């Protein structure tokens, strides 16, 4: 199987590896870089659990080959989290609004919501629903998740949530 050299900046750290051309970005992140916060739920682009940021845009890492990320900046849930512990305002809002239960879909939602709020800091409920429609949750339901994103947006804008 053909192997290809790859250099990518992941969570601010530049890494170079040689990978099979067919290796998915998700497997590369999880198995080669041990960034297991990126989850695989469906492996065909439906559930959104594997969402990561590619140059700031939310993408599904199960639908990309690792080599397609050559030269890019990839940010995973680990890169959106405080290294010293504690939660970001968005993560704290998820906890406050009971927006997670088993936690399997959660990193994908947090990454998607992060990218969305960067583009749309004062969203309506409808816009939040639309932005998160590519992520599936099975246990919690979506009301808490929508409330969490709304709370995070309100907090960022300095108004009370």
């Amino acid at each position, binding site marked *: 199987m053909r192997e290809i050299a790859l250099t990518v900046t992941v969570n601010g750290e530049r890494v170079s590896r040689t990978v*099979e051309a*067919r*290796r998915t970005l998700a497997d590369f992140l*999880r198995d080669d870089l*041990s*960034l*297991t*916060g*990126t*989850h*695989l*739920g*469906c*492996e*065909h682009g439906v*559930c959104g*659990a594997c969402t990561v940021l590619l140059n700031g845009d939310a993408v599904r890492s199960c639908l990309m080959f690792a080599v397609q990320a050559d030269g890019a900046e990839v940010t*995973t*849930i*680990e890169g959106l*989290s*405080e290294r010293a*512990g*504690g*939660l970001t305002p968005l*993560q704290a809002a*998820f*906890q*406050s609004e009971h927006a*997670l*239960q*088993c*936690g*399997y*879909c*959660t*990193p994908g939602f*947090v990454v998607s919501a992060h990218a969305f709020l960067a583009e749309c800091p004062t969203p309506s409920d409808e816009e939040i629903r639309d932005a998160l429609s590519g992520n*599936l*949750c*099975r*246990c919690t339901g979506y009301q808490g998740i929508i409330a969490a994103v709304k709370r995070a947006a309100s907090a960022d804008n300095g108004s009370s949530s």
Partner: protein
Amino acid sequence: MTAGRFMGQAVARTEDPRLLTGRGRYIADVVVGGASDAAFLRSEVARGRIVRLDAEAARSAPGVRAVYTAADLNPLVHDTSVAGLPDAPYPPKYCLAENDVRYVGDPIAIVVAENRYLAEDAVELIDVEIEPQDPVLDVDAARDANSDVVHPELGTNTPQVIPQFGPPDLEQAFANAAHVVRDTIVMHRYVQAPMECRGIIADWEPHSDELTVWSSTQSVHGVQAFLAGLLGIGTNKIRVLQPDVGGGFGRRRCSRATSGRWCWPPRCSVVRCAGSRTDVKT
């Protein structure tokens, strides 16, 4: 004021910070040194007869460490009964489909390889031909005297009957009722779809004859007891660990024969199967 500590308070879940920052540890995140990956060949028809099964090409494919079919594993099965069901000639003692397949997803062969990519490559090399037959789709069809028998060796589609019981005066209650409503309520076959697929890692220690299993279960003792029966070894030889579980809905009990299938290969090594969505369907 001890009651005030929890009652009437919003109590934050202690696991949330871990799960929110990508530090959850689900079955596919568990790393065990030297593990091989397993992949399955599964039936694509609801009922049929296996007329040809040739796994030779898969056995010599790159990275393949073992290929198992019913001929390899079924003779080793000790007991597949599930605790809590009355004694009955069910379920038949088999691990992989032999002669017949009985549902879409019925496993026919297991490939154990250096990694999942190579295991799935080799699964595609297995030459299988299945002659499709009409499936028996519901309870009424199964009870029909002219129905095909799903497990021919049992000779019947109702090998066990759980006795009905109810209030002894039920008939009288109906007789005295002002109105009696009759209806037939049909339920679909209940198939759960949690976000996390099924998965298992099994590590067989040949020197002490001990099995360590990481399973995406919510019933470690159920898995332990089932595997002990299946493998014919004592529960004291089996340790089952439960990582974070990505949703259950009832399917994370002891996964019965499924756990067993995934535990045979490790009698020579460490095998993991982080199942795909296809593995969840069944």
